[in-house]
């Protein structure tokens, strides 16, 4: 196994980790106007992701940084070709972060409303647009030796939008389960019920996604060559079913982990099909960026492997610890008074 292959795997793991982790706090953000009926519910939802969202978002930065270091040509093409889409993701993430920090700093109602909009839009846009972006990567980008032949609107094709909707639905389930897990009483009950209802839509989208993908993309080729990889989508479906099964029995913690596994496995399903491409071209196979023609030198990849071997376990270690510190459910009183101020 070459370093380039290792980095393809790591690249996938970093994206999957990002979707699993930020997935629930983006989901919570999207559900905020629906579940947060009262001011205290809203405070609870914000508080439930308060200690974690920033650390979760760094997985995106790391996935981006790893793409830069390990596959510079992919980084350059992906970010410049998807310029406007990523610009919107960027502004969404900026507004979201600032909203969470500034929301409680002023008591005027218009102030709160403004930052609430920032929080909700800032949660929806990255979920949707990153889904659309990955849908288009699975599908192949309109690029050849002369460069890129598309705009923001070429990305909004039916398959791209389907993947975007799938991401949004999975994150919504994930976020609803998180809120159910971290809160008590009425809010938790409503969140769990909502998770069940959105699950139906998510399940439908997963089924449609799995049916459409072999026709809309070339991802299925790898599965036909190495059929035992079918175990990945199969486990994805199993995790999805387990999510509902646990949620239905009120085992919220397990349902949350099953939902995390679903997101990870759906991402993995796409990446297994993508291999060895990172950015396939739908116009000209020779212009596809693969781990062979777009990776950094073996020396750089070796250095980066050592860095990853040291720091990724360390990061996982302290992030798990932080999640444990904040493992208790949050009471309404705590959400109001136990903030920094």
């Amino acid at each position, binding site marked *: 196994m070459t370093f380039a292959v290792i980095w393809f795997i790591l690249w996938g793991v970093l994206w999957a980790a990002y979707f699993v982790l930020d997935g629930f706090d983006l989901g919570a953000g999207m559900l905020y106007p629906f579940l947060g009926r009262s001011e205290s519910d809203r405070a609870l939802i914000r*508080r439930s992701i*308060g*200690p*974690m*969202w*920033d*650390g979760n*978002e*760094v997985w995106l*930065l*790391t996935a*981006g*940084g*790893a793409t*830069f*270091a*390990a596959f*510079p*040509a992919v*980084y*350059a*093409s992906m*970010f*410049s070709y998807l*310029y*406007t889409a*990523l*610009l919107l993701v*960027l*502004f969404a*993430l*900026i507004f979201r*972060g*600032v909203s*969470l*920090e*500034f929301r409680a*700093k*002023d008591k005027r109602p218009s102030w709160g409303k403004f930052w609430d909009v920032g929080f909700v839009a800032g949660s929806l846009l990255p979920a949707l647009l990153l889904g659309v972006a990955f849908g288009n990567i699975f599908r192949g980008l309109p690029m050849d030796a002369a*460069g*890129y032949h598309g705009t923001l609107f070429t990305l909004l094709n039916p398959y791209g939008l389907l993947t975007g909707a799938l991401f949004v639905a999975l994150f919504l389930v994930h976020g609803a389960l998180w809120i159910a897990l971290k809160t008590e009483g009425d809010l938790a009950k409503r969140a769990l019920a909502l998770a069940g209802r959105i699950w139906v839509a998510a399940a439908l989208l997963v089924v449609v996604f799995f049916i459409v993908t072999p026709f809309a993309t070339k991802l299925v080729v790898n599965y036909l060559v190495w059929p035992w990889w079918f175990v990945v989508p199969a486990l994805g479906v199993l995790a999805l079913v387990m999510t509902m099964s646990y949620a239905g029995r009120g085992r919220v913690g397990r349902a949350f982990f099953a939902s995390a596994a679903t997101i990870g496995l759906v991402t993995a399903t796409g990446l297994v099909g993508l291999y060895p491409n990172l950015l396939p071209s739908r116009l000209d196979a020779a212009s596809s960026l693969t781990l062979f023609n777009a990776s*950094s*030198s073996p*020396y*750089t990849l070796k*250095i*980066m492997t050592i*860095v990853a071997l040291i*720091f*990724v376990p360390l*990061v996982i270690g*302290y*992030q798990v610890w*932080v999640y444990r*510190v*904040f493992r208790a459910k949050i009471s309404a009183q705590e959400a109001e008074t*136990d*903030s*920094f*101020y």
Partner: protein
Amino acid sequence: MDAVVGLSRLQFAATVMFHFIFVPLTLGLVWLVAWWEWKYVRSGDEKFLRMAKFWGKLFLINFVLGVVTGITMEFQFGMNWAEYAKYVGDIFGAPLAIEATAAFFLESTFIGLWVFGWKKLSKKMHAAAITIVAFGTALSALWICLANGWMQNPVGYALRNGRAEMTDFGAVVFNGTGWLIFAHTLLAGFVTAGFFVMGVSAYHLLRKNEVPLFKASFRTAAVFALAAGILVVGTGDRQGVRVAKHQPAKFAAMESQWETEAGAPYTVFSWPDRRNEKNAFEFLKIPKGLSLMGFHDGSAVVKGLKDIPPAERPPILPVFLSFKLMVAFGFFMLLTAFWGWLEGKRGRLESSPKFLRLMVWLIPLPYIVIQLGWVVTELGRQPWLVYGLMRTSDGASMSLAPSQVLFSFLLFTLVYGALGVVDIYLLAKFSRRGPSPVPEGGRP
């Protein structure tokens, strides 16, 4: 293509300068907050807890904007500078990826722990959390400065496969240029935080508000700013020597030195005249001064701009002016920090309203000086993107239309402008309000 390069440069400059309004205060203030929280842990004196909380609150308002505007910087290397990213990604991507993995995770994870962990952690663990954030921010700055240092002084690479490939990771990590930029930047951040704390404390001392708390804040901040200020000068001197050796065009532009000469004098007042390739006037020369500054050797030869092809010269006037102003303001700040330390030591702070008023007005100065310093470093690097290796005009993305970049630039201007206003509003509001009272039983 030229329009894309121009607009992308404008956008990068605007976004990085905005980002760097928040970074210096973050880099400095976090250490003061950690210091005061440890003082509280050691002494149990609630004054220090309230100090940690008050300054910590201001730190957080500032911190979040530094974080979110930092994401823009990483994205732009790919979005606007794709040709650059392709050409040097093999070596330049590494420090950025390491920054995210080794430093950014650390600060972002432990800041959440600190903000929400007052009742979940022991006092010591809680103070440790902010200390880890402090190390995280410094480590983050180190890797970014190493990346920048490589652009100033590219080392440890070979041109292979049509790109710059890394051959020596050690050379990148121990690149003296990057370390000096880091030290200078970090210490300048300490000075910024020192002046910020002194200024806000002065505001309250003028109003006789929470006098013991703000006197203690002021005195610590004065020592902090003074010590860091002296070291800023020291690292700046070392940087001058490095620039003279590795980036002679930048050095010549900083001093508007047109002729190559041995034992070059330092000209205190002058004005560059680019068209006639000479200075419009020169006043007050210190013999051998420039050779001493650039090479620590009075007889050393300083390369003049005339011996550098016009196509390889940076824009002279802005680099020259920024450098001169940075140095002048820098020494002025060092003097005021010394004065503040003296006033605090002699216990005369409350009886010097004029001095206190000056300190309130000086809050913005370190920010301006730091921006000037970066103008020298980055504009002085032009026309190179990577000094001597790749021109800025060759680095921009080929797939972009000027309209796309114009749109994003206008959007950044609009959004960042609004965020800047909100940030100043909140900082001013919470600075004026002062520390919150401690409820009974402590540990609010």
